[in-house]
């Protein structure tokens, strides 16, 4: 089998890329995509641990399935919020949604 470290390092790389996208980009849609990337990295970790550490239990797989469910709900709501932001400010850049910034 593939060493467990390969999967863990891969998911660490994916998580870091997602975090860079969240921190450094302006577009709300791209931030949302980066958050999805981070969730995916976490799911890979869950399934890797389920396969390598306790293959007789399915807790990690169940967790990954719930991550997918919550991500679906999250994307639906985020789309609604982005549309609302666009309707009010004609932009989808998070820099310009600064009405609550002190």
């Amino acid at each position: 089998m593939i060493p467990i470290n390969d999967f863990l390092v891969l998911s660490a790389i994916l998580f870091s890329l997602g975090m860079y996208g969240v921190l450094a980009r302006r577009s709300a849609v791209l931030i949302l995509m980066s958050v999805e990337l981070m969730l995916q990295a976490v799911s890979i970790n869950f399934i890797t641990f389920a396969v390598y550490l306790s293959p007789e239990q399915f807790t990690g797989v169940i967790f990954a399935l719930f991550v997918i469910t919550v991500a679906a709900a999250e994307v639906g709501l985020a789309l609604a919020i982005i549309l609302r932001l666009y309707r009010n400010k004609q932009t989808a850049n998070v820099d310009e949604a600064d009405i609550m910034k002190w």
Partner: protein
Amino acid sequence: MDDTGTVIAFWLLAVITVGSALMIVAVRNLIHAVVFMMVSFVGIAGLYLTLSADFVAVTQVLLYVGAISVLMLFAIVLTPGGSRDNAETFLRLPALALTVLLGATLAYVAIDTDWSLADRGGFTDTASAIGDALLGKYVLPFEIASVLLLAAMIGAIVLVRPEASIEEAEE
């Protein structure tokens, strides 16, 4: 399990996944970013297959590639010009430094830890076992997830309702 085949598939999929994930945060055009995101998600589904988690791989393709990517496309085409000037913020370099640091730390911890691996890795027959677990041991979170999805749906509808219809409802 054919070992060399699995290893080759893993490295191929890993390169595709990380490469397209890099392109997501690198490209300026949001439509291109969504396409790279789909490629990346298909690659991750393939990685699930190399982990012998077939049910999650199929769910991944159905939900992420089929539904979530299409929602992202909707978000982009419904906000035309809304993402003009979507370059990196001035926080680019600190973000890059923090990201490299975090990735290196996570990778170091993963490699340094002595994982107590199970003797026999790999799943057999995941779909029926997942069904048993979801409707047996994990039935409460399963039901809560359905309430969560309903709440998210109602919330999304209320959020995008035009102002006029809210005023009508209040009259």
